[in-house]
């Protein structure tokens, strides 16, 4: 077990070095958060129809989304890409460790370290200056923390799958570029999921990705009541299991292919 913890730790330390990227991300995300918030404000002022979420709930949702952008499975692990391209990936198979879990641990670090750098200052600013609220009660706060952990698991499992597709060098690069846009929309990162028309929402609800953003964010603001938050967590854990199994299957195929082809 300590081997996997060591992988997370080492990768975490590497990623904490990217302070300039974190600062740039921080500034961009504040800017975009602000714009998204203004769009919703205008929308709420011009429409009298009842909306699926209150404006303050939307504000919380948006700022959480901006703060947690780095936790979202939006990119691949550059080191893994290099490893596959240079053939260094062979070393991964020379270690007495399960390659899938090593990569999963890398993904956990990849999703947490940059998020930590950005989220803390961004949330502080949003709470003080940009109208974000704290959770309505302790129950919401605790459930949010739990669901955030669930979101990290889903996100890491998805990231691992994206990283595994890199084993198919040419095709994988394409998937790793295309998939994030799909995930971006279906996780509620662009527009909160409750605002989608029902048919599209049905599709989104059948996918795992809203477990990364939409569900935990709504738990935070109390849009999903604390009494129902356990369902969110269960759903996240179930999806994680499915994604891990799929990832392991995919990796077995990818490595086998590599093993067969050599290189």
């Amino acid at each position, binding site marked *: 077990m300590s*081997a996997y913890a060591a*992988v997370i730790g*080492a990768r975490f330390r590497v990623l904490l070095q990217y302070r300039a990227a974190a600062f740039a991300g921080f500034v961009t995300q504040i800017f975009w958060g602000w714009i998204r918030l203004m769009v919703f404000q205008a929308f709420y002022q011009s429409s009298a129809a009842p909306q699926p979420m209150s404006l303050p709930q939307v504000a919380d949702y948006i700022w959480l989304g901006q703060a947690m952008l780095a936790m979202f499975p939006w990119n691949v692990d550059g080191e893994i890409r290099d490893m596959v391209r240079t053939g*260094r990936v062979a070393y991964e*198979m*020379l270690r*007495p*460790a399960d390659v899938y879990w*090593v990569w999963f641990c890398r993904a956990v670090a990849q999703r947490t370290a940059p998020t930590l750098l950005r989220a803390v200052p961004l949330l502080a600013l949003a709470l003080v200056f940009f109208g974000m609220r704290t959770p309505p009660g302790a129950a919401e706060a605790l459930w949010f923390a739990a669901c955030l952990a669930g979101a990290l698991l889903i996100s890491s499992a998805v990231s691992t799958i994206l990283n595994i597709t890199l084993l198919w060098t040419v095709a994988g690069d394409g998937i790793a570029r295309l998939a994030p846009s799909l995930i971006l929309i279906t996780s509620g990162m662009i527009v909160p999921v409750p605002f989608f028309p029902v048919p599209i929402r049905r599709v989104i609800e059948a996918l795992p990705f809203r477990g990364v953003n939409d569900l935990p964010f709504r738990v935070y603001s109390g849009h999903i009541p604390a009494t129902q938050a356990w369902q969110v967590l269960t759903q996240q854990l179930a999806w994680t299991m499915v994604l891990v199994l799929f990832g392991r299957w995919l990796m077995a195929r990818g490595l086998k292919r590599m093993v*067969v082809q050599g290189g």
Partner: protein
Amino acid sequence: MSLIHVRDLRKSFRVSERAPGMVGAFAGLVRRRCRIVEALAGVTFDVEAGEIVGYIGPNGAGKSTTIKVLSGILVPDSGECLVGSRVPWRDRLNHVRDLGVVFGQRTQLWWDLPVTESFDLLRAIYGVPRRDFAERRELLVELLCIGRLLNTPVRQLSLGERMRCDIAAALLHGPRILFLDEPTIGLDAPSKLAVRDFIRRLVREQGTTVILTTHDLDDIEALCTRVLLIAAGRVLMDGTLDSLRETVTHERRLTLDLTEAAEIREPGARVVYAEGSRVVLAFDPEETSAPDLVARIAARYAVRDLFIHSVPIDEIVAALYAEHAT
């Protein structure tokens, strides 16, 4: 039984081909042509514990394929392969604990981390007890002279420094078997000598079994008591360097430094090189005795200096490769 036991190992790859140019590119979208390449066509050998074996052969001969099979990365099509009575690819996790590998052209250290952190990470991954690790690490750091490099990020190391750290990294878990793939590639002379010296000590003092693949035949000459020559997926020769030499030629070389340039004609010897005052003669010591030849030449020409040596190993191997080129 021997530590590494390989019998009739076979492995072929499918290589897709396409005709060159635009037309070829489009044709490739519709139909791919495949060619079967036989990387290993029945390789057989044994390696005993504590041996240091040079594994040589021209590019594409099947060297890395063999190493990959032995490391459990690659599954052969057929044949037997036992390393310490384990089948590498069936029992991968236990197998690799006994194994250290250095691919000279690729580092196993984490690029952005200081060397020492890569070492700690490897300790955790291999589950080496802390005390063993500390002892071994201290020894390796001392022997490879990498003490002052430990806190430097790997990306800032020179090639020679990185290679020494990489070799240390491959040995931190105390493997019984070490595969070295071009460990001296691109290194300057002092680094090369340091690496060779270290490998020699490792074999002598720890009894580690080493398989060394390289194109640098000086490495082989300096280190290996035994050489396996492979070409086109088959073992062509298995023996000492001297026996390898014998199969190609019995010749020796006599290198002369003359005080002034002269054309040398001497029965029983032929000129293989002449440039200014430097002349190299080749002769067969069984037909022409070396002392006689030297005496005759010294009597007839103004010789400033001379020495007798065997045919350089590079020439021997080049001749062997040419013979078996397919």
